[in-house]
């Protein structure tokens, strides 16, 4: 008997199947969102942490201006930088740690053994990351506008595009990173350390002057490009507000490399102990 003959798939028309797929994505997304927001500590460290950090740096930085960026207020740089940080934190750190934990405690295995198609899981996970990132960015923009009088981004559509590419890039990096971490005990420390070093080198806490040594290093990594891409969408000034094609290109390359690593190395089941 052939494999196909052994099953009665009960499939409907293409339209019915498409509607069902959309419903499955919506349902999985709904429960992912519920799981995320019902965990107050997790939600705070993913979203609230960037607001607290922004507030502390804004208070410390006061009304400074960045001379090598045409006198842009430092607080504007911080608001843009933490919007980028929010996306990276949610999509890279949070996703990588969550995947390792779910792999090691067999939640991924359980999902794999259910009839939920893998592509639906991937789409729902990407949408989940995008929604949490969007919430983080909206909160940061509101805090920036209301508490520190930072104008909303001058190029909102460009910001949305940059954020979507950032979500794709850093989510892929998160999945790829999860494949290199052996157990859930080391997931938090390893991911946090790597992320902190990259964010530090990339000038989140202090803008990097052109020609600085750190810039030479951080230009190789997507974190720097995410920060500058988001920052560019805040301004219409020539030079600063130019559409960040180069930054986007670097992120797309990192997304592609990470996708290859993720597809080759991803595991549903825990490592054999």
């Amino acid at each position: 008997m052939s494999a196909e003959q052994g099953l009665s798939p009960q499939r409907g028309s293409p339209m019915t199947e498409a509607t069902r797929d959309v419903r499955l994505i919506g349902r999985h997304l709904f429960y992912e969102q519920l799981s995320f927001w019902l965990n107050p500590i997790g939600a705070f460290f993913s979203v609230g942490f960037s607001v607290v950090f922004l507030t502390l740096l804004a208070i410390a930085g006061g009304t400074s201006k960045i001379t090598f960026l045409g006198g842009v207020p430092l607080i504007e740089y911080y608001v843009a930088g933490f919007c980028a940080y929010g996306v990276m934190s949610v999509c890279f750190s949070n996703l990588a740690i969550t995947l390792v934990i779910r792999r090691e405690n067999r939640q991924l295995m359980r999902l794999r053994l259910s009839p939920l198609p893998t592509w639906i899981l991937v789409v729902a996970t990407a949408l989940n990351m995008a929604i949490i990132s969007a919430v983080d960015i909206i909160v940061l923009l509101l805090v920036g506008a209301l508490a520190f009088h930072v104008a909303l981004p001058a190029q909102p559509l460009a910001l949305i595009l940059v954020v979507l590419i950032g979500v794709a890039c850093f989510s892929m990096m998160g999945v790829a990173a999860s494949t290199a971490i052996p157990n859930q005990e080391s997931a938090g420390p390893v991911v946090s350390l790597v992320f902190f070093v990259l964010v530090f080198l990339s000038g989140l806490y202090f803008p990097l002057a052109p020609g600085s040594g750190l810039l030479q290093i951080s230009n190789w990594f997507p974190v720097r490009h995410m920060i500058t891409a988001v920052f560019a969408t805040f301004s219409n000034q020539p030079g600063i507000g130019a559409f960040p094609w180069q930054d986007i290109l670097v992120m797309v390359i990192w997304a592609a490399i990470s996708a290859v690593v993720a597809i080759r190395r991803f595991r549903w089941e825990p490592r054999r102990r």
Partner: protein
Amino acid sequence: MQRERVVVVDNLCKRYGNHTALNGISFAVEPGEVFGLLGPNGAGKTTTLEILEGFRRPDTGRAEVLGVDPAARSTSTELRERIGIVLQDASIEPFLSVRQALKRNAGYYRSPRDVDEVLTLVGLNDKADDRVKSLSGGQVRRLDLAVGVVGAPELLFLDEPTTGFDPVARRDFWTLVRSLADGGTTVLLTTHYMEEADALADRVAVLRGGHVVAEGSPKSLGGRDISEARIRFRLALSVDLATLPVQPTSREGETIEILTSDEIAVLRTLTHWAVSSDVSIDGLTVERRSLEDVYVALTGGNKVAATAEQHQ
């Protein structure tokens, strides 16, 4: 017409580097049957299950679940609509409520069971609104089973389902599994507990070192049903053994042992003699080989195994 076998494992081999996990095992599970896969750690149970669940491919041999290759991508979604799996040590999203966790999983299936009906079945309806993280170990295992059966599976894999249960919870769980089996669900069970296999399984296969070393019903495994019963009692040293109506197999101090294949007749004769001769026989016990005796003998236990071998 012969009914389609639910699981077919035919000469399955699997190696990990230099280690041979499976060395040509074969067995089949019939529709509606509870089939137990027994064996010590490293015997190959988990590898067998992982192949049947589609996680691994065998090096050689054939595995078939509900008529298809479980590792075939073209049929994997449809196959998973028809099977349910209760994994060992698998977490459930801790911040969801019990009902939310079950509804989430029910939503993955085309024709799931009613969530409240399943909660009632596993005895968690009064915990439906509690967070998963607040459940006890036994309650989490019940939720595991609920997740495993919410898709109304034709075949249910249970991987050491009652490890860590107290005796009462274990018996409740058996009742639950039996009721599922009575409802027509085929069950493939792995367990370390021989009492569990004895209570639940219609047939068992014992694995050792990647081989099936025995297969049959728990009642007949290793010749349990035809082996001799052991009758033991204490008799005062002053009683002359020649007056006994049945000759003992051995005597150690006051303890008399008789091995027989017809324990009812021997007991009748013995008790009739004791009453009519006014002789006291104390501590009378009748034992047959337990499934555990047979298992230990088959899987290479030392002292107990030797005892069990002697009984064969």
